[in-house]
């Protein structure tokens, strides 16, 4: 618990990596139906579901799992050495998000 902050870079990278994938592969943990103010794990006939909260939850779960795995690795697998390359994932995933929006909205 004392050194939990050493997991922060790994958590961030995992979250940023998995969030757009959760959208792309339709992996929302749950959906929210605003017209009936209901969260649901199953498909609901109410339609017009918000998946954004579910994508965040999915990314959060994956990020926690990856951080937990990293936490039990021996110190020689330290991510601190790779810190200088941590910009690659957010920039790559921002570009991938542009593609997701392009495919979903602008190319149709």
């Amino acid at each position, binding site marked *: 618990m004392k050194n939990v*902050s050493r997991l922060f870079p790994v958590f961030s990278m995992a979250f940023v990596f998995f969030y757009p994938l959760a959208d792309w592969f339709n992996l929302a943990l749950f959906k*929210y139906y605003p017209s009936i103010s209901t969260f649901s794990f199953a498909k609901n006939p109410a339609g017009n579901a918000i998946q954004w909260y579910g994508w965040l939850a999915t990314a959060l779960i994956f990020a926690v799992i990856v951080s937990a795995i990293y936490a039990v690795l021996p110190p020689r697998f330290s991510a601190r050495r790779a810190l200088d390359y941590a*910009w690659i994932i*957010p920039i790559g995933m921002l570009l991938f998000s542009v593609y997701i929006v392009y495919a979903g909205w602008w190319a*149709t």
Partner: protein
Amino acid sequence: MITVLLIMHLLVAVALLGAITHQTLSLWWVPAPAPAGKAAAFFSNYRAVRANVYTNMIVILFVIVAVFGSLLYPGYRLTVLPFMRANHATLWGGVFEMKEHIVAIGLGLLPLYWYLWKKVLFSEHVQIRKIITGILAFCVWWSFLDGHLINNIKGFGP
């Protein structure tokens, strides 16, 4: 209620925008010392801040703005999005969806951002600190301008 929430969302976003802009400019464009006997120019003073002091507040403000935004989001989905779909405003529908993704990525970056400012010596990992802070500033500016554009297409008011 939704209008009150929208105004609070805006006010906290303005505070966040100011804080992250101060910090990012101070990092990317270090002010030169003013010549002896002369006062520093306005922009030099704007950048000459103790950037580290802003970090915790930026994290807190980002989370608060995101929470307010997520509370407003169902209203957008029920009123503004159908309006845009009905009017074939796919450009703007996509622009707002981009905001969803950018906010999510910004939220995900917060632990790394905090770590780089608070747990790494200021003289170490300088480039990555600059880049991650820059990406976060981009997320904040995009979200702010994006929200305004969409709000002006069709307001959230009753």
